[in-house]
């Protein structure tokens, strides 16, 4: 069979064709692998850059919190003391000064709460459960919806992850406040090594894909980006009430 020159020609031509394809494909695979590696490096650099920006943002927020506490807080406390002194010196003015005095006390409290929510050091000092609880309390005072909060022990997360969870929690609560029109919000957090934060509401819901693809989803994109930075898995399950949706469920958990 192989002595026939035509058969030999056909076989050699077929093998040469196969060899040519093999060379082309191997070259392509190697070149593609280089491209993919480069792309991974670029993505890592981008992630590091984002992380740097977030750290800077946190530092600025901490600085603002310190300024609120040390400067504005002190001035307000001084004002409060002055008002008390004025009331003591001139008891007749006590009635007229009462609304001002109340407003100063309220402002001091608000500045204190705001400072605490801006300063991420509080999380490290008091723990995530305590910090989230304070946020829940702050929400409850607004009387916009009923907050049902349950939690386990302190989750095993590194400091950066705790800060990210806290910021995402704040952003999600703000979104709830602004858009959800919910009556009840159910928040639960699994602790220890099984960290899982679930925030569920009975509000009007929304079309996740539509919001994400339109220019309106900046807050949501921010949440997803933060979660990615903290190596956390984030999922949002929602549908508009017109499409039979029953509120929104937001889940944040640790990537195992």
């Amino acid at each position: 069979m192989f002595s026939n020159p035509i058969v030999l020609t056909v076989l050699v031509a077929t093998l040469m064709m196969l060899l040519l394809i093999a060379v082309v494909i191997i070259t392509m695979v190697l070149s593609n692998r280089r491209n993919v590696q480069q792309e991974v490096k670029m993505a890592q650099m981008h992630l590091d850059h984002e992380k740097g920006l977030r750290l800077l943002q946190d530092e600025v927020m901490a600085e603002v919190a310190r300024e609120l506490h040390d400067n504005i807080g002190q001035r307000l406390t001084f004002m409060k003391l002055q008002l008390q002194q004025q009331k003591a010196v001139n008891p007749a003015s006590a009635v007229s000064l009462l609304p001002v005095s109340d407003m100063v006390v309220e402002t001091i409290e608000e500045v204190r709460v705001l400072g605490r929510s801006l300063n991420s050091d509080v999380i490290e000092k008091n723990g995530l459960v305590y910090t989230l609880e304070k946020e829940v309390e702050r929400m409850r005072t607004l009387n916009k919806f009923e907050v049902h909060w349950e939690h386990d022990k302190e989750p095993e997360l590194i400091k950066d992850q705790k800060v990210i969870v806290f910021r995402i929690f704040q952003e999600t609560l703000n979104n709830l406040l602004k858009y959800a029109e919910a009556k009840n919000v159910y928040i639960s957090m699994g602790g220890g090594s099984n960290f899982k934060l679930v925030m569920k509401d009975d509000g009007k819901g929304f079309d996740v894909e539509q919001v994400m693809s339109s220019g309106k989803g900046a807050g949501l994109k921010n949440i997803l980006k933060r979660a990615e930075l903290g190596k956390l898995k984030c999922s949002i399950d929602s549908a508009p009430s017109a499409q039979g949706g029953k509120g929104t469920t937001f889940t944040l958990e640790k990537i195992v």
Partner: protein
Amino acid sequence: MATLMLVMMVKILPVIAGVYYFGHLGKSFRLTLYLTAIAFVCEIYGLYIGRYLHRHNSWLFNIYMMLEVWLAGAAAIYLMDLKKKWPFWGILVLDTIFWIINLAMGSIFIFANVAMVAGLIVLTMMYLVLLFNNCVFKDRDLLRQPVFWLSLSTIIYCACDIPYFGMHNYFIGHAPALAAKMIRINSILDIIRYPLVAISFILVGQQKQVILNAA
């Protein structure tokens, strides 16, 4: 006979994979699935006509070759990320005209090997364009792309079959004993081709599932 059985078994692989992931397959991959199923049926029917009825089965493969060019060609065209696709449709039409002329010059009962070679060249060229267009310039892992495996299967099969089909009628006419042996080239290429098509179907199915899970 053992090679033939192996070819049959290998040809059924992509059909099973394709049917299993049918819901996840896009237009192009569905066309490829239909082509694979038709190839399987033609192989069995061709065998039945040739070996058991002892009649010519070339007419069946003459028809199948045109179906293959159109189905595989259309699948490639739909997958191409190009604005102007009409030249490729034009090439398919030209190939069909060439096939008609080739049959008219001979007979439907004589295997139109020149038209077959033309079809193989057309498909090789189209899938090379598809490979470069869809895979090479994208920064995704090449080995995870279904289009890569589909293109690879077609390029290997079509390009490597050109020398054999070019000489097919010569062997039939001058050395029928050799023709029976040389057909193994096509069988070996079938054995390479169809598992690669099955891989592409499985990858489409798995990637669609990953996307659904993420959503």
